[in-house]
Each structure stands twice: as C-alpha cells, then as structure tokens.
C-alpha cells in the first residue's frame, strides 16, 4: 500500500482562497488569478502516491511550488483543498494532537539552510525531536549519539552548530531527522546550499544510508542531475502543477512535453553544444608556398600540422611537420605531400556525434562551412573542456581571428 497518497492537493495564497479556487475550477489560469484577483496559486491540483522505501524526487525551478507542496505533507502549510493521506490517514482533517503525533513519530524534515538551533549543541539539536516527545534524557541522548554516529559525526556531539562546516551542519540536520526514527523523511533542497563536491558526497552517503534504513524519502531539488542521481521516481513541477512523473529513464527517454524536454536536454551538454562552439582557430597555408615556409609557420605556432587552403580559403588538405621536413630535404613541393583525405565536419554538428570521428581520426578534424571553406579545427582538449562546462571561444572572437589569419596568408 502507498505510504503517502496525495489527491488533488491545491494551495492558494491570498485573503480569500476559496473564491480563487472556484475561479480555478472555472478554468482561469494561474496568471489571470494573480493579475485580476491578486491570489497566488502555489500548488495546483497535484496528485501522486509514494511507495514505502522509495526515494521520490519533486523537482522544479524556483517558484514551481515544490517547497509549498512538501510543506503540505506535514501541514507546515495547510492545503486549500485536497487530501493528503499518510499511512492511509488524511492529515488534512486531523486535529492538533493527532497532527503533532504524526510530526513527532512518522515524518521528519531536513531543511535547505539546515535550520539548526544555534543555542543548542549538536547533540541537543539531534535530540530535539525526542525531547518534545518527552523521552527521558539518558534515552534520548543515547539515540542522538547513535544518529550522529550514523552520519559520521559521533565526535562532535558537544560542539555548537556554528563550529561546523556546511556539510557537517547538514549531517546534523539529517541526524536530527533520523533520531526520531520516522518512516518518512522530507528533504527540502537539503543539499542545495552545499558546494558541488560536498553535495555529491552527501548524495552518495544518503544512498548508502538508504540501503540500510529503507525510509521513504521525499526529496525536493531544482537540480536535475541530483534528481537523476538519487531519485527512484521523479515528479517534475512547473507553475504549481506536476508536469510528469516517472523513473529517471522514463523522463529522459519520453519527455512528456517541451518543458520537460528542455530540462532533460540541459543534462547532456554533448547534445546541446555544436562543433562551432568548441572549435579553435585553424592555422593555414596556401598551396603555392614552399615547405620551408610551412615548417617556419608550424614552429611559430607550436603545432605539428597545417591546413592547406587555396586563395579562397577552401580546404585542400593537411600537411604534417614530418612530411614537410622530408620535402625540404628532397626538394619536393607542398603539392606532393598534402594529405587530401582530411576528416571534416560541419559547424552545426552536435558534440556527441563528434566523439566517434575525433577518437578515430589520426589527423586534426577540420570544421568547414557549406562552401568547403575552413572555419575551425577541433582539438580534443577543447571538447572535453566544453563538456566540463569551461567557457569556449565566442563566435565574434573566432571571426576576428580568422580575419587576421587571412591577412597573414
């Protein structure tokens, strides 16, 4: 049976949410309700179920309603309409006492900015949930220390949160959530405030812990990479609505609409970047020069190949340094040593189609335009750099340098 069952949950912020919800039923858009009635639709008619032991990721950009949605799961925010069943019991209809019990025993929360109590030690923070339940001091301290050991902070029990690094603080946040031994963990952008390396580490640790604990985890994030890494299933949110729910593979392979598609595209840079965005300025020589000039040019630029072009910068072929020095000895011309079988690609070729050509080519890959004129050269390092997210030369820089090159040759 599903452990969490959300049915048509809607949240509207404003002085008169009930009237706004009727307008929503009449088909008014979120924008129109905001413009004409000054009410904000935070979450719009969202339904989903979560199975025990699942990591369910809710992902969306800021303002998509994901934080509001997760806060409705423990009623930090009351839904305007809809039902939210935890273990089959609708928490929306619960009275204060039952709700307190659910919060104390079944659902814990980890916060984006850690939300540790600055005046309490690490151990006192971790045992807070047990303290408000009235658990005896010795017992709750023992459980807190156990939870701290679980996240690798056993030695820090008596420190204050301010003495810990961000990553350690969030481990304390996680330990505080685990100390109650809840069934459900709500993690609201729990790793977003951490720097990327620590974030990866925390993701791995969470997955490791999850193997042992088998909690049900609702994980909020705006980072698709994070969602794909840790989610068993992902719900994509936009403007308060869920756009698609599925496993990471399903979402990658069959994006439900353009919005999801755009999201998914962003993941794989090799499917977005083109040859033009990673190519470098080509060193060229015209065919009527001698091999000595070619060698000199190569020495000057510190490269071992030159592209041979005609007067109109049309690509003829490539010469190597070895061949050129041989030609100098034997008294041959460039015409005799030019290799005409050069791997060429068009500027708009996507990177992932480029990998194969690059990996097998012994010669540099030339980028030529529709008129067979050379516009750039692909260097393997630049491809890897672009995938790693390093900036590449801009188009205008490229053109400038090409123009200079024309003057030289």
């Amino acid at each position, binding site marked *: 049976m599903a452990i969490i069952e959300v049915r048509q949950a809607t949240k509207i912020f404003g002085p008169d949410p009930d009237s706004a919800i009727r307008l929503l039923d009449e088909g008014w858009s979120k924008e129109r309700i905001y413009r004409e009635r000054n009410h904000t639709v935070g979450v719009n008619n969202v339904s989903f179920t979560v199975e025990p032991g699942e990591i369910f990721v809710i992902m969306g950009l800021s303002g998509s309603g994901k934080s509001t949605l997760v806060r409705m799961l423990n009623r930090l925010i009351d839904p305007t309409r809809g039902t939210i069943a935890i273990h089959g019991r609708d928490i929306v209809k619960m009275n204060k006492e039952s709700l307190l019990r659910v919060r104390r025993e079944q659902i814990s*929360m980890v916060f984006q900015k850690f939300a540790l109590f600055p005046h309490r030690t690490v151990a006192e923070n971790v045992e807070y*949930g047990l303290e*408000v339940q009235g658990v005896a001091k010795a017992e709750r301290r023992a459980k807190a220390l156990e939870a701290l050991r679980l996240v690798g902070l056993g030695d820090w029990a008596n420190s204050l949160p301010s003495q810990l690094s961000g990553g350690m603080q969030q481990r304390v946040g996680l330990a505080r959530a685990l100390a109650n031994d809840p069934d459900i963990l709500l993690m609201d952008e729990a790793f977003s405030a951490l720097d990327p390396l620590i974030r990866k580490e925390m993701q791995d640790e969470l997955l490791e812990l999850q193997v042992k604990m088998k909690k049900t985890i609702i994980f909020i994030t705006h980072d698709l990479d994070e969602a794909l890494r840790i989610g068993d299933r992902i719900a994509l949110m936009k403007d308060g609505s869920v756009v698609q729910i599925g496993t990471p593979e399903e979402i990658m392979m069959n994006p439900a609409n353009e919005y999801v598609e755009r999201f998914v595209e962003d993941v794989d840079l090799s499917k977005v970047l083109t040859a033009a965005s990673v190519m470098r300025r080509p060193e060229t020589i015209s065919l009527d020069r001698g091999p000595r000039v070619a060698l000199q040019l190569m020495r000057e630029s510190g490269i071992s190949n030159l592209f041979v072009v005609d007067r109109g910068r049309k690509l003829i072929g490539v010469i190597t340094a070895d061949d050129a020095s041989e030609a100098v000895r034997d008294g041959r011309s460039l015409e005799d040593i030019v290799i005409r079988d050069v791997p060429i690609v068009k500027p708009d070729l996507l990177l992932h189609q480029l990998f194969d050509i690059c990996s097998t080519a012994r010669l540099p890959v030339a980028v030529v335009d529709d008129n067979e004129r050379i516009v750039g050269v692909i260097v393997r390092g630049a491809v890897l750099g672009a995938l790693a997210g390093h900036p590449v030369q801009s188009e205008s820089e490229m053109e400038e340098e090409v123009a200079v090159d024309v003057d030289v040759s």
Partner: protein
Amino acid sequence: MSMFPKLPLDEWIEDVVDGLVNNLEPVFNVVTVCIESVVHGIADLFHWIPALVLILLFTALAYYLGKWKFALFTVLGLLLIDNLGYWDHTVDTLALVLTSALISIVIGVPLGIWCAQSDKVRSVLTPILDFMQTMPAFVYLIPAVTFFGLGVVPGVIASVIFAVPPTIRLTNLGIRQVPEDLVEAADAFGSTRNQKLFKLQIPLAMPSIMAGINQTIMLSLSMVVIAAMIGAQGIGADVYGAVTQIKTGQGFEGGLAIVVLAIVLDRMTQNIVKRKRRGSNV
C-alpha cells in the same frame, strides 16, 4: 470664537477617574500595600547591610559580570556617593527603580510574547505604547496620586507606565526576529506552542529582551526626580529640593549620584547578555 463648543474632555477624564476611585478603592489599596512592601522590603534589606559591605558586594558582582575596569568604576563611584552622604537616599532610589523594573518585567515580557504571537494584539498595543511613551510623564502623576495617594507607590506606578514599553517592544521584536526556518523546524518536529516558545524563541530572543529590560531600568531611573515631586524618597527628593531652593552644589551632587547609579545598572544589565553569549561560544 468657534462654531463648536469645546469638547469637555477634561471633565470626562475626571469623571472616569472619580468613578474608578469610588468603585475600585479596595483594589487600589491592595496594589498600594503590595508595591509598598516590595519597595520597603528591598530598601530595608539594603539599609540593613552596612554600606561598605554592600559596596563590596556590588563590586564583586560588577567584576563577575564585566571586567576589572567596570569593577573599579563601581567601587569608586559608590564610595563617592557614600562619601558625599547620599548613600541612604541612593539605596531608597535603587529600591524604587528595582521595583519598577521588576513590575515592568512581570508585565512587559508576557505582553511582548503575546504581541509576538498575534498580529491583532500587536496592532492594538502599538498605539497604546506610543501614547504611553510620548505623553509627558508628569501627567501620569495626577491620577496616580488620586488612586494611590502620596509617596513612593504612585512614583512606582508612573515609572512603570513610562518605562514598560521598551520591554514589551523588544520582547516582541526579539521573538519575531527568530529566523523563520528555525520556527518551521521546531514545528516540523512536533513542538507545541509552549515548547517552541521556551526551547527556541525565548532563548534566541534573550539578547533583545535584555536590551528592553536595560532600557526599562534606564527610563525608570529617569523618573526618579519626577517621582520625588509626589513624595517618593531618595536622591530624587534631594535633587528636587535643590531645584526648589536653587542650591546648585547640592543639585549637582544628587545628579552625580544618579549618574553613577545609572552607569552601574546599565553596564550590569548589558553584561548579563554579553556574558551569556560568551558562555555559549566556548
């Protein structure tokens, strides 16, 4: 002169005051007895302890709360007061100020908490506090005398009315300034309202609350001379007497005693917060 006759506001107020005096006299009597016994209790205790011993006690407290410089100032300042012959009156004044501060805290902190928990309460209370602070303090003396007669009690009452607003305001502010995500965390782990208040909000609001209490003590000290006009004992009476008889020297001595007392009380209350913060950072 005018198309409309003057509103008989003064008569209405007097009617209300008369009505209160006639109907609530037993209540006022109880309040008078309570306040008098607190003031006299404190004053008697301080009078009973020999001046030098008390000065040493204050110095020790100053050293415990602050640095040796503050302790040095305390011992020299208080010895000067004793030397000038104002020790007994200073102790009377101290009793009056401490009583006002005590009553202000007992009333102000809970009101401040209530204010922080309800926007409605805040919107009602804020203009009342503004009124209390801006109305010239002398005005409170008149009904205070009507209700409580002459002496120290109406002085205490007027001081409290004048001095309680900072405690209410800064308690409210301190609690409202507790970061939202911490309040959310407390809620998410199933705290009741009181658990949230005592385990999170009040501890974090403590510096702000103490700043309010500090302000309250300073304001009630500023009421000392005014309270003397209706018969409250203490250095205030000396200063007031000096004013009526144009004795500049005596007025200055009395004023100096008040300044010393003010500085000692101010630094002590400020250092309580600092000391706490230092303690929690170790």
